[in-house]
């Protein structure tokens, strides 16, 4: 059994409520942080722990916190990004639904560290029932003196507000989230200035993912030195993975970042193998926007090493032969799945969710969707594949926010690794309407190039 830090007590009955949470060691970290460690102490531990942002980019949290500007007389804010809308990702929902107090405690410690007296949880509108759970938890915590004025007699004040989004993927981008929180249209801001300098209402702001904030609690509990003993290298601690697709046991798993991808898919502790005894064809390891990998590149890197569930190993080989851990939305596809159709689904999603502010993303996402639609429905041309490649290349990196990149990467990776399947669709338009390309050679081991002999 892998060690757990976040979901260790998730299965205790009634952990959603304050009393059970408290009697199982809850708020001990908050007490420790506020009473004995002080803001610098917590920041030091978080830096030492090597915690990386769990929202997708994997930016070191301690470094992000130390960037926050501290001008005199200007309030600072902490915003919790709970606008989890990436297709395939549903880990934050699990945390908030089952152990809301873990998030509240994480928010309390983090706000204390940053010196923020107001924290906002921006939650996606589709999670309609979760704000009630959070509000209840906040009310309980406030009753017990963990929120409000002069918490634990330290003189630190904190209020937590829950704000519901109206259902836009783009509002998960931190600056669009801030705009939306301010009551405006959710358009990403042009950076710089970064939120750490000019964020919510022009004040210094830190935006963190739900899981990142929750992970602060075990870090304070066990200490940064103990935390880095979990995981490998720079991928420290545990990560929530929301596994879905053609697997026997879809769900949210907490993994220690020291297991291999193969173990994660096939072991009974986690996904339990591919459904109906089928073979693995491809996998998107980090939510819809990261590159898709064929089975052979997923389990082994191009250098022939075993691929691990870590930030570094999944990114091994860059985008040419690797992918990203992203937000941990692990989508597994078996031999019956069609990559073209899957790419079309994602392209349609990004087209629908583009905010329309900057031209490459506004126009390019719709164009990619239409070209992919033609290929999938037997009306494609050979030149369409190169056209798609060119469109994605002109979107990537040229947009205001990362949504353009997120729309471009899945298309790029699908063409890079599954070009034969696209060509098969174009050459056999009628057959493509009735059956799928199948596994083909996508699971065949890739020969590892011999290292050049050194004389």
């Amino acid at each position, binding site marked *: 059994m892998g060690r757990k830090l976040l979901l260790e007590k998730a299965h205790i009955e009634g952990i959603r409520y304050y009393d059970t949470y408290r009697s199982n060691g809850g708020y001990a970290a908050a007490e420790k942080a506020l009473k004995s460690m002080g803001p610098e102490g917590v920041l030091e531990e978080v830096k030492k722990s090597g915690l990386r942002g769990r929202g997708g980019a994997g930016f070191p949290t301690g470094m992000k916190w130390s960037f926050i500007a501290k001008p005199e007389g200007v309030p600072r804010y902490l915003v919790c990004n709970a606008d989890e809308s990436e297709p395939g990702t549903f880990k934050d929902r699990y945390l908030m639904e089952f152990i809301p107090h873990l998030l509240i405690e994480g928010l309390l410690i983090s706000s204390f560290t940053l010196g923020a007296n107001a924290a906002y949880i921006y939650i996606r509108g589709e999670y309609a029932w979760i704000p009630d759970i959070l509000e209840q938890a906040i009310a309980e915590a406030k009753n017990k003196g963990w929120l409000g004025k002069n918490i634990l007699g330290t003189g630190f004040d904190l209020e937590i507000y829950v704000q519901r989004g109206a259902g*836009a993927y*783009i509002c998960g981008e931190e600056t669009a989230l801030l705009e939306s929180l301010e009551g405006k*249209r959710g358009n990403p801001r*042009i950076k*710089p200035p970064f939120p750490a300098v000019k964020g919510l209402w022009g004040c210094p702001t830190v935006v963190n993912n739900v899981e990142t904030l929750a992970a602060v609690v075990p870090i304070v509990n066990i200490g940064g030195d103990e935390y880095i003993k979990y995981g490998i290298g720079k991928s420290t601690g545990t990560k929530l993975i929301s596994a879905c697709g053609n697997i026997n046991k879809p769900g949210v798993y907490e993994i220690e970042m020291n297991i291999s991808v193969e173990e994660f898919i096939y072991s009974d502790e986690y996904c339990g193998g591919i459904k109906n005894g089928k073979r693995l064809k491809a996998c998107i390891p980090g939510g819809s926007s990261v590159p898709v990998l064929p089975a052979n590149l997923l389990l082994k890197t191009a250098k022939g090493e075993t691929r691990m569930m870590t930030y570094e190993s999944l990114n091994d080989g860059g985008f040419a032969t690797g992918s990203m851990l992203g937000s941990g939305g692990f989508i597994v596809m078996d031999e019956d799945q069609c990559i073209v159709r899957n790419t079309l689904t994602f392209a349609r999603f990004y*087209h*629908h*969710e*583009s*905010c*329309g*502010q*900057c*031209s*490459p993303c*506004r*126009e*390019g*996402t*719709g*164009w990619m969707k*239409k070209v992919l639609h033609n290929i999938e429905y037997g009306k494609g041309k050979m030149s369409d594949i190169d*056209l798609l490649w060119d469109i994605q*290349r*002109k979107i990537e*990196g*040229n*947009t*205001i926010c990362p949504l353009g990149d997120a729309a471009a990467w899945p298309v790029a990776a699908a063409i890079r690794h599954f070009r034969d399947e696209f060509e098969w669709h174009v050459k056999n338009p009628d057959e493509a309407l009735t059956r799928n390309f199948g596994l083909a050679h996508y699971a065949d081991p890739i020969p590892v190039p011999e290292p050049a002999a050194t004389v």
Partner: protein
Amino acid sequence: MAEEKKLFKVKIDNISVEVEPGTTILNAARKIGGDIVPPAMCYYSKLQGSGGKCRTCLVKVSKGSDADPRPMPKLVASCRTTVMDGMEVANITSPEVQEARKGVVEFLLLNHPLDCPVCDQAGECDLQNLSYEHGAEATRYEFKRRTFDKIDIGDKIQLHMTRCILCYRCVFTADQLTEKREHGILGRGDASEISTYIHQSLDNNFIGNVIDVCPVGALTDKTFRFKNRVWFLKPVDAHRHCEDPKCCGKTVLWMRGDEVFRVTARKDQYGEVENFICDTCRFDKKEAKDWIIEGPRKIDRHSVISQGHYVNTVKPKDPLVEVLDGRQPKLLFDIHTTSQVNRPDIDLSKIDGPAHSDDFNHRNS
């Protein structure tokens, strides 16, 4: 002693310039001027917060600053990125930038109707100029372009959303020049549209400026629609004493003969309005007697509007007159004396209807 302001040294396409801290790359380039100025479709120096959206002004920062010489990982929007001391920028010297800009132009034209032949903006359209300079000759888009219905916002302005490139300039104008905010963006993605709150007409003495700031033909002057092509009109600088204290009264009259076809604000070399004018000047003063005319407006010679009246153009010298000691060349013989093709006896103006070969066949008809 006054404290000397430290200037930042910036190199754009290997041309050095010194600018004040806080200047954007685009404005530093405009200080140098010439070919190296990135095109801008959404940035408008008079409107706060504009820019960053169209992505045509993308440039490559090959050296961040003297303190941190690392290049920036992505192309940046030059209109919204401020310079650092020692920064080195590549615009026309970077193939990567040219490629990206070509892509952006293609994206901007993707859903644009290309109805220039019937568009009032033709001839003074930023998108036309941009695609002429940076675009491809043909589109690779094979699908139906999105369309919108035309909307009248107020009785003087028409919004033709199909042509819009969503630069947000009019939103900033309406927001910053007028008191009430009723003009904004609805919808998202490629379905977003400029509109007014519950199709309200905009009634404000400065709302007419949205026509001038629009880089394409999405917002047009209804008092001028389909009246004339801009290149047939003669622009003259004019002014009048305007009662509105916020209006400068300095305009350009677009005339043909004595008739004033339209009144616009004066635009600088980057197509930006120099001073905003009020709607009374724009829509209601359409007679030459309302204005004090200053003289012809100088229009850039690359513009189609200045066709036929280039300033400072020199006609090539005709050497024949000089060779013939000042005499004009003499007609040597009349073509009709040797050729039967032309019949000077048939007067074309007397033929009923269009001329036909039959008219020439019957001699003495």
